[in-house]
């Protein structure tokens, strides 16, 4: 009967010994598994929903097809398949034997492991082990001789020149794993061989490898007797080693066998497309529960921890990471391994002594990430590195620990809704160049809403692309509209930087704008980042229409004939897959379809599609300055492109790519080799867009009306000019800013035959467009009029040397002032105005119209606040109270101030204060100070809008406090005088000491104001702002009254025209002349 005897030649005692060892091995194995489980339980729970059943199915497919291991590394893929399937077969084989011998036989009294079943079993097992052995040999060869960078644990990006002890231990672990298995295989085949040699059987051919070994041994001259001896020693050696191997599985690299199954099953299909939300704060507990992001290893979810354990140190993520490749201090592999090491040490508990950021990982590692997803895309075991990095960033942002440039960019986005600091009003200024008007979705409906994005709106190079796209859409008859100024940055990168609160407020804003607009069927965008977040993340916050990337639309338009290719370009080009469109959202085909349609031969980049190499702008890196001298990912990509033979264009379809590559083309020295173009520009060329007229022709009746109205307008303006020059005095009641003489809006139904009615229409409608020549005339007329004396808003208190009128604090109504508990510091806050490059004056000529002003927290007051907060922190107890003279809109700055750490705010206002001078302001603040009785008052040196630099000093006099101005440093030891350093002209510093209480005006540059995240600002909404009516400030007057505000005649520089070369040449000549060289 075909079978074999187990426990050959062993007596009962030895068999028992074997079972004892075996049981012990399994116990150790199970204990090891349990330890990991216990560790995971200490991890946080998942916040993202997952479908376990779907996950398991996906995992089984991945494991059985080995697609994740085979991806971009066929040799390792097939070798590992050999190892995996061989091991699986071996495991099944042993299990079958166990079931037969230890369960069936004792319970049912018979064995099935015999006969034909046994024969086929033997064959499969032998072949399985052969595959295993072959796989191992390939892996050993690969690891030993190929010097693969991804298997090198040296952190050269950290300047390491030799391996750390931990890394050496990893190498040992890798080799122990491989070699132990190999020894097991060899001794296994040896066992077969000596068995068949000492006990030959007819069916030996069913164990072909074993038979071959037996033949080989007999050729070597091993006798059956010797074979028996070998057999007995080898049996125990192989058995113990196998059991030891089993016991050890959960304790080292071999644990991936189990961990990977879980890690792959829990893979988030939307990883990085859709980042996890921050869990809702509980309302009851203000303090502890407001955790955001990962501060400690125990904040990692159990799935994250499983990911960490599943890592096999294959190094593929290390290989593909654009940061690591160009020398930035981030290797995803090393990040995961360092986290794992730490997690193993703490077993899932937060550590008191070791800081996650600082000791385990460096902050610059976390900030180097581009959120490109290359690491998680290539990881064979399903590790999701990018989300872990974003979670750690969330915590850092919450603590205000980030690059100052990043801080100020986030502040800018919060203030004006774009990262460039451009006024929101100018968001669609790029459309002014177009021959046609672009619809405003807030005013009329359209088929498609085009969400433009920051770079496509404001960056000059990208504006050209936006214009091209607009023209293409128009030429193709697409009905589209924009949100114009209603749009703010979509927030994809804000989220990836970790400022979750700001992201949420951007989403809310954009969704609200879309909801309030007229209907549209879908959204398109040229920006893959906006595309990603609107498609995948916005739906979690509200309803949003489906969105496509413009390449999909253009591909359709070309295919359907809406755009006709007249002139195929016949160029050899290469194409760069943008991370957020390609790898992250699987969008590879549309751009290629377009290129084919317009007659371009696409020569693929060596790293293309899911392996595309990030331009380096993502993850907020475009807002963070780079180290000087380091290679940038975009430069690396340019070198790669330059290697391709005879390429004319490097094509992009992402605004950030275009920006980065236009730059990198020069800095990498390939300016002459490569031209960078956006797809839209090529399509425009191919369809000969220039030849197509896109002007909106108004109907004939409108054109007639316009022509008649223009004539009338000319006549009227001439007459007005005469009237004005002759009759200035009679215009005392007329507002100096006359409504423009206008062309009435085109009304196709009303023929303008009656000049009088036209004039009435003109007079009644101040909002229509004015033809430019007429406006210019009008402006001239106004400026030649003398400034009209304005009645001061507030009568100043008369005085002279006989009747001095020292200023007193404003008398304010009482409000609840809490008991002092420690230090109390008052900080004066101003919500300052920022004027852009256009302005118009108000009707009374004393101020600028509000629509031309943006607002922000005064930079100097921010510095003063920071000083105050630090004083209170050093003292250990106390509060900072903000005082502000401003209208309700100033609350925006007060919220920021409260978010940064002030406990309360008091705001005074009365509409009469609109032109208040610093002395009046000081009286108001003094009024609050008399109620608050602070220990210190800190003000900024001046406000960035009007820079009087007087409020602080005046305030000190009104309150009779010692005072120092332009303070850059202070030191107070809680008792007695305060030491202060003021900065004089020329950088000279003056140290002095002042008695306390005192008033200090703080200069910028002496400290770095802390950052208030949007979440802190939202939380601060609970903090009180006491609003007081400030009518009493108006009595008692101030220091001046406003006569007028005007644009001064500027002596302007002689502006030079021409190309940079022309201008540089001119300048060089001037320099030569002046220096006599």
């Amino acid at each position, binding site marked *: 009967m075909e079978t074999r005897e187990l426990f050959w030649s062993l007596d009962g005692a030895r068999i028992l010994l074997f079972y004892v060892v075996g049981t012990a091995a399994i116990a150790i194995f199970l204990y090891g598994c349990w330890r990991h489980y216990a560790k995971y339980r200490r991890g946080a729970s998942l916040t993202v929903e997952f479908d376990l059943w779907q996950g398991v199915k996906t995992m089984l497919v991945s494991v059985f097809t080995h697609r994740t291991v085979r991806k971009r590394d066929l040799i390792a893929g097939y070798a590992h398949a050999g190892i995996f399937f061989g091991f699986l077969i071996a495991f099944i084989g042993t299990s079958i034997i166990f079931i037969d011998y230890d369960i069936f036989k004792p319970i049912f009294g018979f064995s099935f492991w015999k006969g034909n079943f046994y024969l086929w079993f033997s064959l499969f097992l032998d072949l399985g082990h052969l595959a295993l052995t072959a796989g191992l040999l390939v892996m050993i060869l690969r690891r030993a001789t190929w010097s693969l960078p991804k298997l090198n644990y040296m952190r050269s990006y950290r300047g390491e020149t030799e391996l750390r002890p931990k890394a050496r231990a990893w190498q040992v672990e890798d080799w122990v794993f491989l070699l132990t298995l190999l020894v097991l295989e060899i001794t296994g085949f040896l066992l077969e061989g000596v068995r068949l040699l000492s006990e030959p059987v007819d069916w030996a051919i069913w164990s072909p490898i074993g038979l071959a070994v037996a033949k080989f041994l007999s050729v070597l001259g091993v006798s059956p007797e010797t074979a028996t001896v070998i057999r007995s020693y080898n049996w125990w050696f192989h058995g113990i080693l196998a059991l030891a191997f089993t016991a050890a599985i959960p304790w080292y690299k071999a644990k991936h066998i189990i961990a990977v199954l879980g890690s792959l099953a829990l893979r988030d299909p939307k990883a990085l497309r859709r980042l996890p939300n921050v869990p809702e704060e509980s309302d009851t507990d203000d303090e502890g529960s407001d955790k955001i992001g990962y501060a400690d290893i125990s904040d990692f979810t159990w799935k994250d921890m499983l990911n960490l354990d599943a890592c096999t140190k294959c190094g593929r993520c290390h290989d593909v990471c654009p940061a690591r490749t160009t020398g930035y201090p981030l290797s995803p592999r090393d990040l995961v391994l360092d986290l794992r090491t730490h997690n193993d040490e703490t077993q899932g508990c937060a550590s008191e002594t070791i800081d996650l950021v600082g000791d385990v990982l460096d902050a610059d590692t976390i900030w180097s990430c581009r959120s490109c997803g290359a690491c998680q895309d290539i990881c064979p075991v399903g590790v999701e590195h990018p989300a872990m990095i974003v979670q750690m960033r969330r915590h850092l942002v919450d603590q205000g620990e980030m690059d100052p440039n990043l801080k100020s960019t986030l502040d800018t986005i919060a203030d004006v809704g774009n990262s460039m600091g451009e006024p929101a009003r100018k968001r669609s200024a790029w459309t002014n160049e177009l021959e046609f008007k672009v619809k405003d979705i807030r005013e009329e409906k359209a088929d498609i809403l085009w969400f433009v994005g920051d770079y496509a709106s404001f960056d000059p190079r990208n504006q050209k692309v936006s214009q091209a796209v607009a023209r293409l859409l128009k030429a193709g008859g697409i009905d589209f509209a924009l949100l114009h100024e209603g749009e703010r940055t979509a927030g994809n990168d804000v989220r990836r930087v970790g400022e979750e609160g700001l992201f949420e407020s951007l989403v809310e804003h954009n969704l609200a704008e879309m909801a309030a607009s007229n209907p549209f069927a879908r959204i398109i965008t040229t920006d893959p980042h906006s595309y990603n977040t609107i498609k995948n993340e916005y739906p979690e916050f509200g309803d949003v229409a489906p969105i496509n990337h413009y390449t999909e639309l253009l591909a359709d338009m070309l295919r359907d004939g809406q755009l006709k290719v007249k002139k195929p370009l016949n160029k050899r080009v290469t194409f760069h897959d943008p991370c957020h469109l390609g790898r992250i959202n699987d969008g590879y085909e549309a751009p290629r379809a377009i290129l084919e349609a317009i007659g371009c031969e696409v020569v693929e980049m060596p790293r293309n599609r899911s392996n595309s190499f990030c331009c380096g702008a993502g993850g907020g890196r475009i807002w963070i300055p780079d180290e000087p001298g380091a290679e940038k990912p975009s430069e690396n990509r340019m070198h790669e492109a330059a290697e391709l033979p005879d390429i004319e264009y490097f094509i992009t379809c992402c605004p950030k790519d275009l920006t980065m590559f236009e730059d990198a083309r020069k800095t990498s020295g390939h300016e002459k080799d490569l031209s960078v173009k956006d797809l839209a520009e090529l399509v425009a060329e191919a369809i000969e867009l220039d030849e197509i007229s896109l002007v909106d022709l108004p109907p004939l009746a409108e054109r007639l009306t316009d022509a008649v109205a223009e004539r009338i307008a000319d006549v009227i303006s001439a007459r007005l000019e005469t009237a004005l020059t002759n009759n200035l005095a009679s215009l005392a009641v007329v507002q100096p800013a006359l409504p423009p003489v206008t062309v009435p809006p085109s009304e196709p139904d009303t023929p303008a035959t009656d000049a009088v009615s036209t004039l009435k229409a003109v007079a009644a409608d101040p909002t229509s467009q004015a033809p430019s020549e007429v406006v210019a005339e009008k402006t001239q007329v106004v400026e030649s009029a003398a400034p009209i004396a304005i009645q001061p808003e507030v009568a*100043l208190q008369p005085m*002279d040397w006989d*009747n001095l009128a020292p200023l007193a604090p404003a008398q304010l109504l009482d409000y609840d002032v809490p008991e002092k508990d420690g230090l109390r510091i008052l900080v004066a806050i101003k919500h300052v105005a920022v*004027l852009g490059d256009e302005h118009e004056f108000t009707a009374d000529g004393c101020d600028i119209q509000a629509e031309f002003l943006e607002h922000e927290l005064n930079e100097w007051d921010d510095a003063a606040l920071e000083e105050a907060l630090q004083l209170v922190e050093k003292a250990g107890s106390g509060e900072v109270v903000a005082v502000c003279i401003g209208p309700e809109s100033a609350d925006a700055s007060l919220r920021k101030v409260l978010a940064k750490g002030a406990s309360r705010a008091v705001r005074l206002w009365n509409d009469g204060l609109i032109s208040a001078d610093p002395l009046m302001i000081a009286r108001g603040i003094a009024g609050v100070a008399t109620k608050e009785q602070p220990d210190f008052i800190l003000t900024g040196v001046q406000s960035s809008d009007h820079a009087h630099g007087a409020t602080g000093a005046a305030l000190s006099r009104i309150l009779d406090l010692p005072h120092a101005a332009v303070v850059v440093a202070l030191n107070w030891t809680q008792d007695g005088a305060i030491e202060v350093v003021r900065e004089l002209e020329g*950088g000279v510093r003056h140290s002095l000491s002042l008695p306390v209480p005192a008033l200090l005006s703080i200069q910028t540059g002496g400290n770095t104001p802390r950052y208030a995240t949007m979440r802190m600002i939202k939380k601060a909404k609970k903090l009180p702002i006491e609003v007081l009516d400030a009518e009493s400030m108006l009595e008692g007057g101030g220091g001046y009254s406003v006569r007028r505000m005007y644009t001064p005649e500027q002596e302007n520089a*002689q502006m030079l025209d021409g190309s940079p070369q022309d201008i540089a040449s001119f300048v060089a000549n001037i320099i030569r002349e002046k220096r006599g060289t």
Partner: protein
Amino acid sequence: MSGILIIAEHINGALRDITGELAGAASSLKDKLGGPVSVAVLGAGDAELTGTANFLGVDEVINVNVGSEHFDAATYEEAAFAIGEKLRPQVILIGHTVGGMAYAPALAARLGSGFASDVLALDVIDGELVTTRGAYGNKVNLETAFPGKGVVVMTLRGATFEVPEGKGTAQITTQDIDYSTLDRKSTHVEYNIPPQAGVDLSKAEFILSVGRGVQDEENLPRFNELADKLGAVFGCSRPIVDAGWLPKSHQVGQSGKVASNCSIYLALGISGAVHHQFGMKHVDTIIAINTDTEAPIFNVATYGASIDLFEFADALEQILD
């Protein structure tokens, strides 16, 4: 009440330029307002120092011994008030400087007088004193008046008014005032002059200066090299120093260095805020490159171009190579 009182500003035994400029402003106002013009030098009674305040147009110079040669805000406020009470001027002129800002507003608050700061022009229109200052980041001008105020205190912008040429023939009188019991006083500790490191902008004839337009710290070396190639000294505006990208010694401006010997100033990516202009607007030939056509630097520059400064630098480098 009549006359103009000037409170002099000095440090380390020498008058600061602003004092002369105040005297110049006062003498032009004297014709319309009426004199006399008095200058008060508050210090430790240094006669030599006081003598230098005798500018053409000044009618009286008062050497006020307040017991210390060092500036103290409270002392200056009290002393100015005391002198003012004696002389009863219509206008009190103080420099818009770190020192002036510390007490001029306090003096105004104490008197209940009119007050304007950082004044760049003054005039008398229809018998009224009218001052002009900047507003909204100096993009527009604000004209203010002081109806009903018999006394006006104002601080004048530096490097704006002409210093009178020639010595005056004023009487010098002396006053001693004891302020030792003044309880709001500060206690002087010391001055710290920043170490001279490498560059001396105040002596440089040709300066190439960069501002926020340079965007990244990593871009600085190439501009430094360009400056070297041109034979210029490398300077910058305040934001560059505040960010820690260059040491303070490279800063041109009010709290940095005044380019006093400079004849060519090449400003790249600098907007030209007032305090920067303070350090360079007097330079003969100023060439400004800035993509913002509204940048205030163009108001003081001789030549300007609104092109990208990197493209300009590229082109200039090519010419030099």
